[in-house]
C-alpha cells in the first residue's frame, strides 16, 4: 500500500467480502470518515463485529430505515451513550462465548465532549471494546460548531474569530486510564494505520484509536486534499502519531519535521484558518508546547524523520 486512496478506499479481493461501508452512501465527497471506514473494513477482514454509532454524521451515513450503508450490524445509540451501549453488547456476547468484536465509531463530539463520561467509565472498567474516534474537529452534523477537539485558531460557526484555547489531549486522557492500547493513526500513513487497527482489533480490553478525519465541508478545504492535509498535520507536529501501551509505554511512530512549510500549508489550505485572529507563530508555539509534554512521556526522538513507524513493535 502506498496511497490510502488506493490502499484503503478501493475494495479488492484482499478485503472483507462484505465491506463495512457499502457503496451508495451519502457521505460528502472527501469525507475522512469514508476513508477511515474503508481502512477499518480491510483490517476487520472476516472477523465478526457489532458496531455502536452514536448520533453523528456516522449514523446519517447508514441512510434511512430500512436500508443500511453498513455491512455489519449497527446500533444507533443516543449521543452520549455509545460506550455504555457497547458495554452491554460486549458483556452479553462474552457471556455467550461469542467471538464478536464490539466497536464504537464516534465523532469528536461523542468522544471528547458529551460522550466523555461514558467513554472514561468504560475505559476504567476495561470493557472489551474498540473505541474509534473519527475526529473532524467540529460538530459537523449540525453544521460546524466548535467542540473541545477544535484546534487552536480555527474558526467555526460558534467561534467566528477563531478558537482561543487548545484542543483537548484525548490520547493523554485515554492513556491516563492505563488501558491496554491507545493510539493515534494517520490516513496519510496507511501502513502504520493498518498495523494499529490490526493490533487494536486483536488486543482484548478497552482499546482507543484516534483518527484525524478531514471534513472538507467544515474545514473549508478541497475534498481531494484531505489526505495531504493529514500528512501536513503530522509533519508539522499538529497531529502526533503515537501509541501508548498499558498507559505507560509511549512511542512516537512518525517523527514530524516541524517545518514551517508543513504548518503553513496545513493552515493555508483550509478556509477555517483564514479568519483566525491568532498568528501562525502562536499556533507554532502551541504545537511545540504540546510536544514538550509529549517528549517528557516518550523520551527524545529516536526514529529518523518521516519514518512511517512500521515495525515499532
Amino acid at each position, binding site marked *: 500500500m502506498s496511497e490510502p486512496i488506493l490502499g484503503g478506499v478501493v475494495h479488492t479481493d484482499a478485503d472483507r467480502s462484505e465491506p463495512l461501508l457499502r457503496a451508495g452512501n451519502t457521505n460528502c465527497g472527501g469525507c475522512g470518515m469514508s476513508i477511515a471506514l474503508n481502512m477499518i473494513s480491510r483490517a476487520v477482514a472476516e472477523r*465478526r463485529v457489532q458496531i455502536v454509532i452514536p448520533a453523528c454524521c456516522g449514523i446519517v451515513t447508514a441512510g434511512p430505515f430500512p436500508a443500511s450503508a453498513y455491512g455489519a450490524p449497527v446500533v444507533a445509540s443516543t449521543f452520549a451513550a455509545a460506550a455504555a451501549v457497547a458495554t452491554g453488547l460486549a*458483556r452479553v456476547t462474552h457471556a455467550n462465548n461469542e467471538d464478536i468484536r464490539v466497536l464504537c465509531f464516534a465523532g469528536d463530539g461523542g468522544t471528547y465532549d458529551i460522550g466523555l463520561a461514558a467513554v472514561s467509565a468504560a475505559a476504567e472498567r476495561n470493557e472489551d471494546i474498540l473505541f474509534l474516534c473519527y475526529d473532524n474537529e467540529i460538530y459537523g452534523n449540525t453544521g460546524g460548531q466548535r467542540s473541545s477537539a477544535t484546534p487552536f485558531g480555527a474558526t467555526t460557526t460558534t467561534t467566528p474569530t477563531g478558537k482561543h484555547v487548545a484542543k483537548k489531549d484525548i490520547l493523554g486522557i485515554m492513556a491516563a486510564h492505563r488501558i491496554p492500547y491507545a493510539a493515534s493513526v494517520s490516513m496519510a500513513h496507511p501502513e502504520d494505520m493498518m498495523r494499529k487497527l490490526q493490533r487494536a482489533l486483536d488486543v482484548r480490553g478497552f482499546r482507543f484509536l484516534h483518527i484525524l478525519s478531514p471534513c472538507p465541508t467544515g474545514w473549508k478545504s478541497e475534498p481531494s486534499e484531505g489526505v495531504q492535509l493529514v500528512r501536513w498535520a503530522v509533519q508539522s507536529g499538529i497531529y502526533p502519531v503515537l501509541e501508548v501501551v498499558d498507559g505507560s509505554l509511549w512511542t512516537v511512530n512518525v517523527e514530524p519535521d516541524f517545518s514551517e512549510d508543513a504548518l503553513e500549508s496545513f493552515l493555508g489550505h483550509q478556509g477555517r484558518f483564514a479568519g483566525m485572529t491568532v498568528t501562525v507563530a502562536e499556533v507554532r508555539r502551541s504545537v511545540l508546547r504540546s510536544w514538550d509534554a509529549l517528549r517528557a512521556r516518550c523520551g527524545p526522538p529516536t526514529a529518523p524523520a518521516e519514518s512511517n513507524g512500521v515495525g515499532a513493535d
Partner: protein
Amino acid sequence: MTMHMISANHATAAAAALAARANRSGRGFCSGVYPITPQTECIERLCAEQIPKGSVVRVESEHSAMAVCMGGALSGARTFTASSSNGLAYMAENVFAAGFYRLPIVMMAVNRTLGPPWNIWVDHGDTLMLRDSGWIQFYCEDNQEVHDTTLLAFRLAEDEEVLLPVMVCQDAFVLSHTMTMTDIPDQEAVDRFLPELRLPHRLTDTPRVVGGLDFPHQTEVHRKQHLDAMGRVPGVYARIQDEFERCFGRRPPDPVVPYRMEDADLVLVSMGTTASTVRTAVDEARARGVKAGALRLRMFRPLPERAIREHLAGRKRVAILDRDSCPGLGGIVWGELRGLAAPGAVVQNYLIGLGGGDIRPEHVRGVLDDLASRDESGEPHFMEAGA
C-alpha cells in the same frame, strides 16, 4: 416459597435476581446500576447476587445504566435497572430510547421528590414525568406487590405481543425502606413462570441498523406499532395474572383496584401507598354512614381507561388525589382522569402529600368532607398534609 422480613428495595432485587437466573439457559442477564437514595439498597443487593451468565455493570451515571441495559437487551439478555427522582430525570433520554427500541427492560423506580430543593421523600412526579416514554407503568402498594410486580414485569415486557419496557414504581421509604414479611418464591417456580427471552430484533450478524434514521411516514408506522403494542397490554396482563396465580398461588391485583365501591357516592382515586390510608378513611366514613368508596390506580400506562370509566359510571362526586404537581395544570393523574367520570359528575383534584408530606386518615377525611360539600369542581385543592 419462604417468608422473608425484607424491605421493598431488597424484595425487588430478589425478584430481579430470580428472573436473571431464570434466563441462564437463554442469553443471560445484564444490568447497569448506579446508586441514588432511596433506591441504592436494591442495586447493592443485586451486586451481591450470584447470577450465572449475568453481568451487573457499575456505571458512572443513570444515563449509562439504561444504556448498558439497552446494549444487553439488544444482545438478547434479560435486563434490569433501578433508579429514582433526579436520576430518572438524568436518565430520561435513554428511558425514551429504550421505549422506542422496543426493548423489554424492567426498571424499578422509587418515587422520590424531584429537586432542587433536595428532598428524598415520596412524590410521584418523577415517574409521571416519564409517562410518555412508551413504558408500561405500575404503582405498587406494599412490598409483596413490589416483588410480584417485578417478577411479572419481565413476563409482560418480554411477551412477543408486547415487547415494551416496564417501570415498577414504589413509594420512597414508605415501601423502599420498610421491612415486611414477603413471600419469595423458589427458583424452580420462577423458572416455570419466566420462559427464556427471545428478542426478535436482537443483534446478530445480519447487517442492519437498529434505531437509525426514519422519514416521517416510517416514524408514523413505528409510532402506530408502539401504540398498538400498548393496546395489547391489558389482554396480555390478564393472561399473566392467571399464570402468576397458577405458579405462585396468589393473584396480582387488577390494573384498577376498587374498594367498597358497590353503592359509593363519593369516590377517592389514588396511587401507591396513599391507597392504604384511603381505605382506612373509607372504613371510618362508612362507619359514620357516609357512602364512600375508593379506586387505586395500579397501572398508569397503558391507562386502563375502560375499567376506570366502568368504575366511575353513575358516581356523582370523585376526588383525585395527586401526589405530584404539574404547575400550570394541577395534578397529573387528575388531568388524565377528569374526562373519564360520568357526565356532570364533580371531579375535584387534591394535591396531597407532596414532597413526602405524611398523609394521615384525618387528611383524607378532610378530602371527603370537602368533596361532599361540592356541587361543582373548582381549582385543584392544595392540601398541606405534612404541616
